[in-house]
């Protein structure tokens, strides 16, 4: 299991999707880093993951608006990667992740009718091409 930082994770995930064009499934799992998981992770890695210090501090645990890091894992065949997204990195990670999704998940079926909302430029181009053909 390779531990990467969030942006490197999305790059590697993009590579997984690229490689999976011929065969196989890319699986992405997300869960919250609770106090217990953070504690175990810090034991393994010999350091507290980013964003985790606030959780492990017991005084803060009683606040309602405490923010947790998020663990994200991805697998493709035998390759496994993971990352921990700190609360302040959420936007950057979300942007990179949704870019990867839009770029690589293109084998999904598109409706033949012209649709007002096109998620990606490729979808818009393909629907306009279908219009021209018709």
């Amino acid at each position: 299991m390779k531990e990467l930082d969030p942006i490197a994770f999305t790059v590697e995930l993009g590579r997984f999707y690229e490689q999976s064009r011929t065969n196989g499934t890319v699986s992405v799992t997300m869960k919250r880093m609770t106090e217990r998981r953070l504690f175990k992770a810090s034991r393994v890695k010999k350091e507290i993951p980013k964003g985790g210090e606030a959780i492990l501090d017991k005084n803060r645990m009683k606040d309602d608006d405490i923010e947790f890091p998020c663990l994200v894992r991805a697998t493709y065949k035998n390759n496994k990667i993971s990352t921990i997204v700190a609360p302040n990195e959420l936007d950057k990670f979300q942007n990179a992740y949704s870019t990867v999704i839009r770029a690589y998940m293109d084998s999904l079926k598109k409706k033949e009718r012209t649709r007002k909302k096109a998620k990606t430029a490729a979808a818009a181009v393909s629907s306009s091409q279908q219009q021209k053909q018709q």
Partner: protein
Amino acid sequence: MYISNWDEFQKAAEELYTASPETTRYVSGFRHTDGELILKVTDDRTIIKYKTNQASDLRKFTNLNLSLMSKMQNKSLEVPEQTEVPTSGPQIPKVVSAPNSAKSSPAPQSRKKKNNKRKA
């Protein structure tokens, strides 16, 4: 186990997460060869799954990712679309470029006029 309606799936996923945030995980799998996206939300007691091969569900998938990740981090999900928030990255260049374009497009004489006004 498999839900056929996206809105129902989203609602059930968010409810399941709110009910047990510590043990719920969200799994997504994508097969390029079959063109299928499979989503699963489970807290090891109940499972809800959704399967699709429609490109129209991609945007909903991204939104659900955003929503669930924010819940996981216990973060408020407010994405300001206007340029009121100074901290967002992509919006700052828009603000900066506007005065620059205003300065560069008119003739240089106007710059001197502006400078005179400033000095005055």
